[in-house]
């Protein structure tokens, strides 16, 4: 019988304190808290949470194991479907996936599935298990990109006995987990580095500073370096801008640039050389997770920080928890506001952002009510820095340097549900196929492709 207690609160850093540091916001459950929270699960016959998980993690089963404190068994159950639980437990939009479908959520609060997954994932990172690795089959696979898709694909292939080399364009392995998601949401040493270490232990080789499409090409990897197949998991790294006047003024930057400086280059730490600039007031344009990451980073660097979003709060695509945390940290939210022009001084530096008020009209193709400009509602938000967080698209470098690799109108590589592309032996998955999406979908795509590559090479 399930325990009818309220959802076990998770410990977090005090908002006033954490808004001045880069340490992780959420401290997570301990064993006692995790077991107690697990006891709330109804273990439904027809688990809607599992159906809502993009990779179908056997959620009731792992929670059953947790109920009796068998964390190792819980970790094994999750591992059947996910290779990155400590990461997904932190960054998945649970409210629209597993937790959003939890029966308990109808009348009260859903089981904190994400926090439980995180607990189990972290436990496994501290108690690593020797994975079974099949004997080498003598075949070589190249993985392009070391983000969630690449890591998942590489580890599955390594376990099957393939010799896998992951090529990363940047100087650090991890892709968006390192350059995109901030330390305060996803610790680099404590979580990301450990996940990568566990992939390394499977025998996967990593080569950084290799830009596929420039340093090497897909063709040179296959023809000259003897790779039998290639998986492309190069993500969606290209930032979008609005195309409004003043966008090239000094002080306007993409969220990608701002976050890369802060996260990958550790610009927030004075011991590192890369500069970062926030001025007195920062405005971040956009409402997704990247916008929240950027605005909260700006706040931590000492600026007054504001979100400007053209729809209303109900439409914010960011995880509910991030919006909640941002508000607690003193981020100002200006909803139904759309920038029309960046204002600058004579020296070409940003002084403000001209905006118009919006109202919501009929639902558009995405199902969200489309914002319409209110006539004569122009106003100016004074600021020194404007950060554009409007989404990203795949980098065309690989497609443009690989003959016969089909892409669609949005520049995404065309791949079937198993990752097979128009080129035999070349597979793709994650954001480079779907456009910017989630870590768990990319991880799932990487694993499916690993299976397909194995079938192709056998």
């Amino acid at each position, binding site marked *: 019988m399930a325990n009818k207690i309220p959802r076990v609160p998770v410990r977090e850093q005090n908002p006033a304190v954490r808004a001045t540091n880069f340490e992780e916001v959420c401290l997570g459950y301990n064993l006692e808290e995790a077991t107690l929270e697990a006891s709330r699960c109804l273990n439904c016959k027809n688990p809607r949470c599992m159906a809502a998980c993009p990779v179908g993690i056997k959620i009731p089963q792992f929670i059953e194991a947790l109920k009796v404190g068998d964390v190792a068994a819980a970790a094994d159950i999750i591992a059947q479907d996910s290779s990155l639980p400590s990461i997904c437990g932190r960054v998945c939009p649970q409210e629209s996936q597993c937790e959003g479908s939890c029966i308990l959520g109808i009348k009260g609060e859903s089981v904190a599935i994400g926090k439980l997954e995180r607990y189990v994932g972290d436990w496994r990172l501290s108690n690593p298990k020797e994975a079974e690795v099949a004997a080498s089959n003598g075949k070589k696979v190249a993985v392009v990109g070391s983000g969630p898709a690449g890591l998942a694909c590489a580890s599955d292939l390594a376990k099957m006995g393939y010799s896998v080399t992951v090529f990363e*364009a*940047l*100087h650090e392995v991890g892709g968006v987990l390192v*350059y995109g998601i901030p330390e305060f949401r996803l610790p680099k040493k404590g979580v990301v580095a450990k996940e990568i270490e566990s992939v390394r232990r499977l025998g996967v080789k990593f080569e*950084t*500073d*290799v*830009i596929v499409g*420039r*340093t*090497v090409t897909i063709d040179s990897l296959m023809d000259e370096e003897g790779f039998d197949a290639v998986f492309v998991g190069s993500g969606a*790294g*290209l*930032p979008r*801008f609005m*195309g409004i006047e003043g*966008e*090239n003024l*000094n*002080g306007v*930057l*993409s969220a*990608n*640039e701002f976050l*890369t*400086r802060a996260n990958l*280059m*550790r610009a927030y730490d*004075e*011991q*590192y*050389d*890369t*500069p*970062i*600039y926030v001025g007195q007031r920062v405005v971040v344009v956009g409402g997704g997770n990247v916008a929240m990451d950027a605005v909260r980073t700006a706040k931590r660097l000492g600026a007054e920080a504001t979100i400007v979003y053209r729809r209303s709060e109900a439409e914010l695509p960011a995880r509910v928890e991030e919006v909640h945390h941002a508000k607690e940290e003193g981020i100002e939210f200006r909803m139904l506001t759309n920038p029309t022009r960046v204002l600058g001084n004579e*020296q*070409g530096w940003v002084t403000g952002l001209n905006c118009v008020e919006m109202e919501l009209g009929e639902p558009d193709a995405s199902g969200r009510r489309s914002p319409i400009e209110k006539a004569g509602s122009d106003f100016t938000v004074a600021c020194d820095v404007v950060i554009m967080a409007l989404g990203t698209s795949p*980098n*065309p*470098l690989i497609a443009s340097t690989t003959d016969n690799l089909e892409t669609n109108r949005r520049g995404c590589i065309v791949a079937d549900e198993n990752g097979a592309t128009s080129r035999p032996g070349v597979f793709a998955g994650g954001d480079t196929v779907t456009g910017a999406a989630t870590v768990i979908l990319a991880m799932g795509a990487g694993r499916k492709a690993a299976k397909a590559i194995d079938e192709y090479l056998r």
Partner: protein
Amino acid sequence: MVEILSREMLAENIWQTVVYAPRIAKSAKPGQFIIVRADERGERIPLTIADYDAEKGTVTMVTQALGLSTRKIVSKGVGEHFADVAGPLGRPSDFVHETMEELQRKRFVFVAGGVGTAPVYPQVKWLKEHGVEVDVIIGAKTKDMLIYTEQMRAVASNLYIATDDGSEGFHGLVTALLEKLITEQGKSYDCCVAIGPMIMMKFVTLTAKKFNLPCIVSLNALMVDGTGMCGACRVTIAGKTKFTCVDGPEFNAYDVDFDEAMRRQGMYRTQEQRALAIAREREQGHKCNIGLDK
């Protein structure tokens, strides 16, 4: 980690460093660049490729030590390592894709300014190897700041030198020398390639325009990743925003908004100067009493 095979001072604050980077050496083409990170705390700094040797696996870079990061790069000696060298980045020069017939009909003039002489060298060398005649103008403030003159003499059909103070070659700016070659010496060119400080490229472009001479410039914008991810290197080309790292670094000079490009180069100047000042004070043994060096 990338090993440094040799290092040589070419002029005051200008150093040539040769590294072992076989993948880059094999793929590099004229017009491309690399990104170097001196150490684990270093900044990613875009640098031009001055030479490459696919057989030896070596890449040569020339760095002018201006800020903290470039000073770090040039201070690394033989046998030491850079944390990272990534590349080749950017699109190769357009001429690489032209047919030999087209190319060999063309008369090129390269205008190189200061440390910009280094990236001109592999372009002229490539053209020479493909049987194309090339004139080169090298400009510097003074004789002692000239670099790569001997290497260039070996590959250029004609080498002209200009110094601001007249200590070697033509007394004056490269623009005046280019103009003189065309108007007084009856030189006629089909393509001008200018690489050097932004202000020089702007004025070479204006000079080329006078003679309806097509002109290409190589922009040295600020960058972080150099692969199209950050957009720090945005430039306005014919009214449209382009990324220097993936759409360039070479652009049709007539289309470039030089004033915006120069202004954007100064985006982090305050922070850079502060970092450099702190480093200098530290070198002199100063300990900051109010903790600014923490």
